[in-house]
């Protein structure tokens, strides 16, 4: 049974329909309404590398829908450290669970797991590859703010080379006809093969090293963290990272409806002064991880989300 490995696994219609389901599940995600749609189902959480939000939001999503979760636990104390292959681990968990959420440091691990498993795999990040469930919550957040996905102008800023969230998101936004601005230091530019693919799909892309020059025309600014360890020396990092920091004072000329997003955790690329502005959406975005994943879990487990929940039509 197919899972969600890359955004290519979903058509635009499916994306919109999953976001519609997520919208209706909001009262359940907030705990205002109990709806045990996934009672009796078990999610296997296989996180081979650290995760806070993704792992916790999958767990919350499953439990809000009355399902249960089993965790791989710390990789250091699991069979993985004894040299177990991913194939064998998947064979085992496949027998224990109805669906698997997985993060792995190696690229392609999610597809590999899907080929080895009978249950659906939800890719929670594979190396610098894909992170489609993050993309679904990002799209949910954008649609929540703007009422649509198509035709928006979106700046993706920071580490576009290693940041898997921006790889998956840029593919999805291209499919909805968004204009993309890639703002990053030269060293952390979007990989060429991804840009080539996006262009082949008719993308409208501008690449720049200057984040602030186009911010006043943007509908969405998607910030990512620039990691110190990507740079050979600290001086270079300090110089480069400084140009990708947002402060409330940078937002004066922006559109009122512009939103600032971040997959979190942030370090200092978004100054706390931004938190209180109308533009900050990153904490709502993190919450939306629960509702987007609830909707995905239902879809992949073939459980229909009712048209009306908690008396709301």
């Amino acid at each position, binding site marked *: 049974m197919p899972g969600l490995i890359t955004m290519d696994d979903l058509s635009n219609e499916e994306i919109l329909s999953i976001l519609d389901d997520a919208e209706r599940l909001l009262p359940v995600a907030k705990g205002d309404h109990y709806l045990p749609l996934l009672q009796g189902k078990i999610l296997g959480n296989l996180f081979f590398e650290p995760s806070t939000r993704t792992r916790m939001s999958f767990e919350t999503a499953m439990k809000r829908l009355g399902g249960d979760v089993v965790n791989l636990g710390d990789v250091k104390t699991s069979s993985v450290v004894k040299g177990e*292959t*991913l194939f064998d681990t998947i064979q085992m968990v496949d027998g224990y669970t109805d669906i698997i959420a997985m993060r*792995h440091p*190696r*690229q*392609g691990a999610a597809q*590999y797991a899907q*080929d080895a498993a009978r249950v659906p795999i939800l890719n929670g990040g594979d190396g610098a590859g894909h992170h489609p469930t993050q993309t679904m919550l990002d799209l949910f957040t954008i649609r929540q703010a703007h009422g649509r996905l198509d035709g928006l102008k979106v700046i993706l800023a920071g580490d576009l080379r290693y940041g898997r969230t921006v790889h998956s998101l840029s593919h999805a936004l291209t499919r909805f006809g968004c204009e993309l601005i890639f703002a990053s230091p030269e060293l952390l530019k979007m990989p060429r093969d991804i840009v080539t693919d996006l262009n082949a799909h008719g993308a409208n892309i501008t690449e720049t090293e200057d984040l602030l020059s186009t911010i006043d025309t943007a509908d969405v600014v998607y910030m990512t963290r620039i990691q110190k360890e990507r740079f050979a020396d600290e001086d270079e990092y300090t110089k480069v990272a400084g140009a990708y920091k947002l402060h409330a004072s940078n937002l004066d000329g922006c559109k009122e409806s512009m939103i600032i997003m971040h997959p979190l955790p942030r370090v200092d690329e978004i100054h706390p002064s931004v938190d209180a502005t109308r533009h900050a959406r990153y904490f709502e975005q993190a919450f939306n991880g629960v509702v987007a994943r609830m909707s995905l879990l239902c879809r992949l487990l073939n459980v229909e989300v009712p048209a009306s929940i908690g008396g709301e039509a």
Partner: protein
Amino acid sequence: MSQEHNMRRVTAIRNGTVIDHIPAGQSMRVLEMLGINKGTSVPVSLVMNVPSKKMGTKDIIKVEDRELNQNELNRLALVAPDAHVAIIRAYSVAEKLTIELGDEIVNVVQCTFSNCITSNLREPLAHRLKVFSRSPLELRCHYCGRPQDLDELANNVL
């Protein structure tokens, strides 16, 4: 210069394999891909950058006393998909083999991306490269999706 002249640059072989219409400059890569460059005692003749009506210039390889098998042809498809292969027996063309680059190359080479899940050779599932584009040739790993470094592929033959 004629085709005949090209073939006479090296002597005709009695038994073996002639690989013709290799893109100019690719013959070394073909030898690497076929594993003929190491530990081979049979005579090998190589002609590079000779004129070709069809290709402008091309390379030719003649391997004596060895007939390429299908598995080797699959490997050849990765570096010279339009090459012509003839099996020679008693100075005559006994068989003409066609190279077919399918949509996917399974268990021939390993993905060239070092952080791909398949870089752990203990993982048992098949190594799968998909043909993303035929001209120019672009291969992508079924698992990690990365475009393959064609120069590196010869080092990753399974």
